[in-house]
């Protein structure tokens, strides 16, 4: 049973620019994945305790201790653009 999805919307939400052929191709692939998920969902699970994680472990914490950070130069080394110690990005609203 094919699952109906708005592949263009999914692509937009993920900010992935897809051509019409790609939309069709990925739409089919995603539909197959969702069909599989539906089959799993249909399995009888009465009496099976829900699990949120495969490992029987909780609370992997870190003590509240400050460790060393990157220097400003190191942090900005990978920035496409930087200015006055900041990461520089194109204008956020409207056309860049």
């Amino acid at each position, binding site marked *: 049973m094919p699952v109906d999805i708005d592949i263009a919307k999914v692509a937009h939400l993920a900010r992935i620019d897809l051509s019409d052929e790609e939309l069709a191709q990925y739409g089919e692939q995603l539909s197959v994945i969702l069909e599989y998920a539906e089959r799993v969902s249909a399995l009888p699970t009465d009496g099976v305790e829900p699990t949120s994680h495969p490992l029987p472990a909780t609370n992997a914490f*870190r003590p509240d201790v*400050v460790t060393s950070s990157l220097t400003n130069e190191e942090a900005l080394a990978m920035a496409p653009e930087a*200015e006055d110690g900041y990461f*520089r990005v194109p204008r*956020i609203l409207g056309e860049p």
Partner: protein
Amino acid sequence: MPEWEAVIGIETHVELQTNSKMFCGCAVAFGEAPNTNTCPVCLALPGAIPVPNEEAIEGIVKIGTALDSTINKDSLFYRKNYFYPDLPKNYQISQYTFPVCEFGKLEIVVDGEPFVVGITRVHMEEDTGKSRHVGEDGRIHDASHSLLDFNRSGVPLVEIVTEPDIRTAEQARAYGAELQRIVRTLGVSDARLEEGSMRFDANVSVRRGPDAEFGTRTETKNVNSLRSLQRAITFEIDRQTRVLEEGGEIIQETRHWNEDKGVTISMRIKEESEDYRYFQEPDMLPLEIDEAWQQRVKAEQPELPAQKRARYVGLGTDAHTAELLADDPALGGLFDQAVQAGANAKQAGIWITQEVVAYLRREEKSLVETALSAAHVAELSEMVSAGDLSSTASKDVLNAVLAGDGTPREIAEAKDLIQISDSGFLEAEVDAVIADNTDAFEKLAGGDMKMIGFFVGQVMKRTGGKADPRLVSEMVRNKAQG
């Protein structure tokens, strides 16, 4: 038609003042040079794994407990997916189903009326970076480009969401103020609105009376004081009422409070249905806050502001004095110690919230910079109750103690302010005055109570103004009534 009624819900974000960030060891600091407290985790470099800060979880459990919430034993982190330049991972680690706390409540008092605000949930998340828009006047719409500082990225953030229970802007403000007091009392955040360590978003709608369906709501952001919270909500209620009365429609949107103009402005961001595609954070294990942890936090909970105010009123202060004392840890601490040392609570409360506060303002000092101790307040209180010092003179003495001139008794003696309250001595003085003024005394005995003042005045004259006038007046009255 019934009157318009507002329906208000508040979302509050509180930055926790831990030493390090929520998921990495970078320092939590305000006002440092940009991008100096970042690392692969909070910059979202490939392969970095977030590890939650135990102290931050402790902090949210404290907040949830103080807000009478259910603490969920099992709790999960989720990814909230959206794109914005201040969010380096393109998702915020937050919570969705199974937040740490749910079903809480907070009682506030407005105009003497108690009012309960339901708390829907309290969840744990991380803060974003900070952006600065470069251009004309620093506004995002006119900016040529923006600059990003990720020092704040990943700072532990607690979101507290109320039920739509609030009905007036005054209640909203009282809720915000009480929440701020609680967070400060718990010591988990300095909750400074102007610096953004506490931030409010107000959801407001209006409807025709309490039985009508909820109207369409707007969400107002950028409210950075308690006063602006009240003003922004008042503006929004008026605006929506006007739009609806003119037959218009309210658009569900995010609005921005403009403090200078005193108006809310539509953000005019292209409306797009929110679709955060939440899914469980696969890099993290579930949280388990067991019964022992919950009970320990409850047992260690400090006295909350409402409990403190009630205790002060119980000791004898009026409600306003209790509020002033409870709001200021230094003044409240002095008051507590003074009362413990034997001071009269009502008297001590008034001295501290009036004389001491006025002195601190005038001299631009903090309490620790003065010479005043709780023992001084207790000594002063005992001197007044014993009749050694008039309450008028006590204020001068208190100011001299604050200035470092000595103990209350030393100052009162040096300034010759000690009253004579030795009743044997004073009775002899009263008798002497009566003997010298038999005509006047007959008038008094005949019921002319105005004459009491004359006799008190005479005794004061004979004692150089040092007799306790209350005691003398009482003696004269007793003698006149035989």
